[in-house]
């Protein structure tokens, strides 16, 4: 009886313990799984953030216009000299082309603003066209010119939210219109959304200010409770001043919050529009009116774009409400420019197309004109130098260490050295290049030659290690057979071992090259950093490399450069994937199991 009791007690305890152990087991397993999921998620986020930023860089908007290559503007003296042609007034040609499309715009300032919607680089396009084919002079031709980056980004939808609403039934009266109830509600909806966003930001800021005020007060309290010395008194006055400033800021914020809250809860009798609110427009036929005030259903509006439609036709013409959510003050493109862009789109001269310039052009200061080809070419030249220098040397070193080296201290030292070199930070190699190749030897700064030399030293250990592994995998029987037939040691190695190990060595070399392709820091050190606006033609031309270009573009504030950076990364990753695929194919095809 007692036996049974104690046994059941033991088993109960045992079951409990087993349960606990099993739980621990499961917990451990899921922690492991969670870690894997974390890595996968990190990779997915990385890829997502790169690709979603990269896509806009692969297309662009251009405007097609009729350019008449006026002799007066380009080559007034009729000299036929290319250098004079380069200095012609191409901006004027573009302005004339634009005024054919939008004849409604007059006034010098407006025309200039309008012409700024076209990229500065459009002039280069025209110049190149004329220089290549001088017979264009005096003729006229349809040309497709890139838009400025801000205009391009607006059309891609990055600068602001915008929306069109069709409606009908507009009653004109003295400097205004009466709009249908539905249209009024549409406007108010956008306006409310904007105010709510604003309110949230203000509330958060007010909260922050309130917290810091509390902290200051608490600090004052603790100081006042302490023993009074002149030091603490001074501190307290300083804190009190600080507190007052915070209080004032709080009052300002509070006031703004109250205003917005009052407005939101009111009947919204009068809504006023300015450059700190969303903008609203009414398209009547070809005319565009900008709404300034909305009172009940009556709007007061200004004629922003005069398309010669008549106000009184408003009942019959096509009517559209157009709302831009971001306030004019907070965006890179003005109301006027947006309306002109919309008009240009209406007249079907703006085209969206694949941005071939991005892959074929060289670097430029103009975001919309900058291309990647110079950097790709630079990287290509770099890799050639790297491969030519590091592959033979790496293979030779591996052959020596694996086949000839006696087992002694010197060999061991060599081995330790190579392994350590593989783990030295890349930036240190940059310092080596700067101090020795550039300053001591005086080799040309910022060229693929020097960059390739530095990268060759860096990839050398990778190639040596891979080549040694490849040599080791050749079975000794091959060597013994060759030696048995009377071949010398070197003949054995050169004629039998190395050919069998070559695919493995090549695989190692490709992987080493892939690493070199992504390397940035040492190249910055040896001056491959400066902006290079030409495609490098040789090993001693100033050049830049793909990863360095990514770094330079990433430092630019413009949105277009951000997209181009991501797109350049996509190209870099594509090259890396290709190289690794090549290595895998090579391995699959030539790998022999002994």
């Amino acid at each position: 009886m007692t036996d049974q009791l104690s046994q059941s007690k033991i088993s109960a305890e045992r079951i409990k313990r087993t349960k606990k152990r099993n739980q621990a087991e499961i917990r451990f397993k899921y922690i492991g799984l969670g870690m894997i999921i974390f890595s996968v998620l990190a990779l997915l986020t990385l890829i997502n953030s790169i690709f979603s930023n990269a896509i806009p860089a692969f297309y662009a908007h251009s405007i097609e216009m009729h350019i008449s290559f006026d002799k007066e503007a380009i080559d007034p003296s009729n000299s036929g000299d290319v250098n004079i042609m380069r200095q012609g007034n191409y901006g004027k040609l573009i302005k004339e082309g634009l005024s054919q499309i939008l004849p409604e715009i007059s006034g010098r300032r407006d025309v200039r603003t309008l012409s700024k919607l076209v990229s500065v680089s459009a002039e280069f396009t025209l110049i190149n066209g004329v220089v290549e084919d001088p017979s264009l002079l005096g003729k006229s031709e349809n040309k497709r010119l890139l838009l400025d980056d801000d205009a391009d980004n607006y059309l891609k939808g990055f600068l602001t939210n915008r929306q069109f609403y069709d409606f009908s039934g507009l009653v004109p009266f003295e400097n205004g219109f009466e709009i249908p109830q539905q249209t009024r509600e549409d406007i108010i909806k956008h306006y409310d959304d904007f105010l709510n966003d604003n309110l949230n930001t203000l509330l958060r800021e007010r909260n922050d200010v309130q917290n810091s005020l509390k902290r200051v007060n608490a600090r004052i309290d603790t100081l006042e409770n302490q023993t009074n010395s002149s030091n603490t008194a001074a501190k307290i006055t300083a804190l009190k001043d600080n507190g007052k400033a915070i209080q004032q800021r709080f009052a300002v914020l509070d006031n703004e919050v109250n205003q917005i809250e009052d407005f939101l809860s009111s009947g919204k009798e009068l809504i006023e529009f300015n450059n700190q609110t969303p903008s609203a427009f009414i398209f009547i036929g070809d005319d565009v009116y900008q709404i300034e005030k909305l009172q009940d259903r009556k709007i007061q509006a200004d004629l922003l774009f005069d398309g010669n439609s008549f106000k009184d036709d408003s009942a019959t013409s096509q009517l559209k409400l157009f709302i831009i959510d971001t306030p004019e003050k907070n965006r890179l493109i003005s109301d006027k420019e947006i309306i002109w862009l919309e008009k240009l789109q209406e007249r079907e001269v703006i085209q969206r197309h694949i941005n071939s310039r991005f892959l074929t052009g060289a670097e430029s200061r103009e975001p919309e004109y900058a291309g990647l080809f110079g950097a790709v070419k630079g990287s290509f030249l770099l890799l050639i130098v790297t491969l030519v220098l590091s592959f033979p040397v790496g293979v030779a070193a591996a052959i020596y260490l694996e086949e000839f080296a006696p087992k002694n201290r010197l060999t061991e030292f060599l081995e330790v050295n190579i392994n350590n070199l593989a783990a030295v930070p890349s930036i240190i190699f940059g310092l080596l290049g700067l101090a020795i190749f550039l300053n001591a030897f005086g080799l040309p700064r910022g060229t693929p030659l020097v960059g390739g030399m530095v990268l060759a030293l860096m990839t050398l250990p990778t190639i040596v290690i891979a080549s040694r592994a490849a040599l080791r995998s050749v079975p000794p029987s091959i060597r013994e057979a060759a030696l048995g037939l009377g071949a010398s040691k070197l003949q054995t190695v050169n004629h039998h071992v190395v050919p069998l190990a070559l695919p493995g060595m090549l695989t190692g070399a490709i992987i080493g090259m892939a690493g070199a392709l992504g390397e940035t820091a040492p190249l910055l050190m040896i001056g491959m950093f400066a902006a290079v606006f030409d495609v490098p033609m040789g090993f001693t031309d100033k050049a830049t490399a793909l990863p360095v270009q990514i770094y330079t573009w990433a430092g630019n504030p413009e949105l277009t450069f951000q997209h181009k950076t991501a797109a350049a990364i996509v190209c870099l990753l594509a090259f890396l994937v290709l190289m690794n695929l090549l290595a895998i194919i090579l391995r699959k095809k030539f790998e022999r199991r002994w």
Partner: protein
Amino acid sequence: MIFILIALAIGLYFLGTKRAMYLAGGKVRSLHSHPFYHGTSLLAFSVIPAFVIYVLAIFAANGFISHLTAGDMQANIEFSSADELQKELIIEAAKSLVEESATAKDTQTTQQAASFYSQNQKQYWRVVYIVIALVIILGAAGFLYKQHLRMRARQISERNFRIGLLIAAGIAVMTTLGIFMSVIFESLRFFSEVPPTDFIFGLNWSPQTALRDDQVGSSGAFGAIPLFAGTAMITIIAMLVAVPVGLMSAIYLADYASPKMRAFAKPTLEFLAGVPTVVYGFFAALTVAPFIRDSAGAIGISASSESALAAGIVMGIMIIPFVSSLSDDVINAVSQSLRDGSYAMGATKSETIKKVILPAALPGIVSAILLAVSRAVGETMIVVMAAGQGANLTANPLDAVTTVTVQIVSLLTGDTEFDSTKTLSAFALGLVLFLVTLMLNIYALRVVKKYREQYD
């Protein structure tokens, strides 16, 4: 010149082989060595030494010509009264005047130096070409004179080939030596201006030296503690991410994952390892840093938009595959009998891992972590793009900090005048970085190697 050498090499090779055949009367059998070896041996005595001389001459040209020019310029009063730094600058200007084009800044002294420079340059290359020609002619003539039927040409060329292999293997050592020399010489120059104690223990880092001597704060401050602290903070954050994730992933993949899961997870980790660091830098600056700033703001803490946390986390992600593949090696090296013994005693998988395998693999794992630390300390692009420039001494991971590598890059990527204290300080930082990573590597690699051998 290279093309001339290549053409000469081809010509001489055929000369060597043809002459061997001629000596043998057209019968290969009667030669001791195949004509191929006669040809290559001839090259080894003529073109190859000439080529080596040519390459050395290219490397030595700059220093040698500048030295000669400086000697010639002693007659010029303005030059001989200038200090060393100015002398170097004048020579440098003369060089660019000769090689590129004239600029408006050129003074008479520079122009004089330039004329000397171009004279010396011509003379230098004349001498080099004569030497090369002599080497080729004498070497080839000597070989051809000695060439005979029973010549052991194969042995000669094999010996030369072997020497070539040894030199190739020695390049790694020369690289290490080169790195060491390049950082140590510049660092010594730096420490002659700034005492090492100020550098290592100073709390203030502001290397911007003023342009004119009379400006306030013209000397700059070179206390590197804020940089070391920033580097340490980012490294610690990176390790806090990379070590648990990397280690647990390795364990899970080795002991728990289904083959399908492994086939999916392994390439993912490898892909993370293959992404260039500049991409991680962009990711950190574009996505992670704003995310951290906003989420910190949402819970009412202010965070810098270049926070140490963002750089550290992304660096950790970068190092995950590194830690996991090294730990995988180490864990697999623990002998199966230990596992079997533990299972036989009724331990669960996780108990076996925690109580048997990890303790047995601990030294290996520690050294894997040390290698990862060395990686993190030397990592450049992520911190350059995502951490700040200002040297703050802070313990708050949401503040901007700067690191050793960031400072090296920012000190050396401007338009650098090579001898200012500012640029020299970059080399001192480089020396510290090199020594720290070297020590970590030597220690860790030794342990890891031991593990690999033990269970091989």
